């Protein structure tokens, strides 16, 4: 028996999951990244180390996927869209639409006959993502866990401008000062967020049932019911909605290794001294900020350059590697 590890390093949360070789979820972890991805991943690995899993493959995803791959020794490193799609299809082969709202971004993925045919991610503004909701909850003095319950208790909702995070906030303050009850404002905020998502991310997309809602925000029942109302459809929230990215990464790892030995460094990476250093590469005028990962004082990986010279060779390849400007 062997297991597969999936790691999704997002801006807000770092999620780990262990899948059995037949695709069952054995363990999930949802940890707050708090701007320290290395510590968080190590913490997660230390927590999993006790269970005695024999890891046969590791997949990483999320905005911190390159770091995670270098740190733990990943076999596959995939973008969040593919990871979420793979996880959703594993859960429900007939899924047609995936709504995913995380800490800093939101996406829509359209699937037909088990294949991703279209997708979109939010563009410039992070209005309507998890961190914005967190901030508003904190400002209203409402624990984010109670958001849904509070929204459900509202008799009316007030209209909040959801297009921009700054406008939404000033609109909420205004509504609050006029005297609208908190629950109506919370419900209004949920509706505004959904309206903004459908206009911005979901623009022109052919949303069909079965609709799955994934990502941390899917735990918020206020948003779920606002989606159901706006779409006139049933919205399904999978049991492991918060860690679907990690599940997808683990599934992709399983596909990728196919019996070949894993590059996993083992759970004891968590015990080692790991840190990153930044330096400015001077090979060309671009002056990229390259990140170097050190594990027990040894160079374990590079990323962040535009031309890939460091990533490619694991050290400075010198003059052999062409600079970016010369390739344009």
């Amino acid at each position: 028996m062997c297991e597969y590890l999936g790691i999704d390093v997002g801006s807000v949360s770092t999620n780990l999951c262990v899948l059995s070789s037949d695709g069952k979820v054995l363990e999930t972890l949802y940890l707050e990244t708090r701007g320290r991805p290395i510590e968080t991943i190590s913490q997660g690995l230390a927590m999993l180390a006790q269970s005695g899993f024999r890891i046969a493959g590791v997949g990483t995803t999320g905005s911190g996927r390159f770091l995670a791959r270098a740190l733990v020794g990943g076999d596959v490193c995939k973008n969040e869209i593919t990871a979420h799609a793979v996880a959703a299809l594993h859960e429900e082969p007939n899924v047609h639409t995936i709504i995913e709202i995380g800490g800093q971004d939101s996406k829509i993925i359209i699937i037909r006959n088990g294949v991703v045919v279209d997708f979109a991610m939010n563009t410039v503004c992070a209005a309507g993502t998890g961190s914005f909701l967190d901030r508003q909850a904190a400002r209203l003095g409402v624990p984010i866990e109670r958001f849904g319950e509070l929204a459900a208790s509202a008799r009316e909702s007030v209209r909040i401008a959801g297009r921009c995070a700054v406008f939404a906030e000033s609109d909420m303050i205004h509504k609050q000062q006029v005297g609208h009850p908190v629950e109506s404002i919370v419900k209004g905020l949920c509706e505004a967020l959904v309206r903004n998502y459908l206009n911005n991310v979901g623009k022109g997309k052919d949303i069909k049932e079965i609709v799955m809602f994934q990502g941390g925000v899917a735990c918020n029942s206020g948003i779920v019911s606002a989606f159901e109302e706006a779409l006139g459809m049933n919205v399904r929230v999978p049991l492991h909605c918060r860690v679907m990215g990690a599940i997808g990464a683990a599934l992709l790892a399983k596909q990728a290794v196919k019996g070949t030995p894993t590059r996993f460094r083992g759970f004891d990476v968590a015990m080692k001294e790991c840190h990153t250093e930044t330096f400015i590469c001077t090979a060309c005028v671009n002056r990229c900020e390259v990140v170097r990962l050190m594990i027990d004082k040894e160079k374990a990986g590079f990323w962040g350059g535009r031309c890939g010279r460091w990533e490619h060779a694991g050290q400075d390849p010198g003059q052999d590697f062409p600079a970016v400007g010369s390739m344009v």
Partner: protein
Amino acid sequence: MVSVGLPRALFHHEFGELFQTFFQCAGATVEVSPHTTREILDLGVSSAVDETCLPVKIYYGHARWLSQRVDSVFVPRVVSICPREYTCPKFLGLPDMIRRALRGSAVCSPLVDVRRRGGSLSDALVLAARELGLDERIAKKAVRSACMKQKTSSLAIREVPKGQGPAVAVLGHQYLISDALSGMDVKRRLQALGLTVYDYHMVPEPALVRIQRRVNRPAFWTYENKILAAAIWYMNQRKVDGIIQWVSFGCGPDSMVGEVVSRECRQRGVPHMLLTIDEHTGTAGVQTRLEAFADMVFWRREV
């Protein structure tokens, strides 16, 4: 000898060879600004009108970089390069914007407007030579050699890549995609993901013209017309598995044509992705989207 500065931005990505050969043959010293760096961008952003798009801000940066180093910066006023069409409205006012930002440095800005008599690109170059005090007869000869040079260099960019695997077309303004900063090496990134990459230069010119005539409502803008026609051609020829549009944040013409292209793609069931680039755009977000697009294209092929 008079020295002329050519900003490596906007039209330079299309007519760079022409400009450079012309001024060299006409007897001037030519300095072309380097590929865009953060430093050049910062120079541009700090002096540009804040409402303009990224490519114009980059142009400002190049012009300022050159202004300390040459006698005159060449900033043509490109109003129209195709009959009955215009270039982007921002190009029309470019010399005025640059002149204000450079405060006192000489700017040479002949008018290019093929809607008028004597408004062709060649006429404009001769006019520029006169303004810079160069010999007009030599300048007229220089125009001919410059045009020859331009022809050979435009043949090179028309060369179609060969590839068996899935292919995508990256469509957008040449000055956005070819720029070292705003282009983010998109073509190389896609090639690294295993895709064959096309652009609108690789569409045969007669085909572009033919499609442009058939489009319901041709736009006013030369480049947007080409982008739309190229998208339609690639889909008609079934050459691509997807279309990626590379647009600059705040680009008026592209905001319209982007929507038209996206509708054409939807109708034909071809994946389409619009990526909006601004000065703050990080490469991480772009890389994630490109990877996801590539995965989708491969996945669709498999089935």
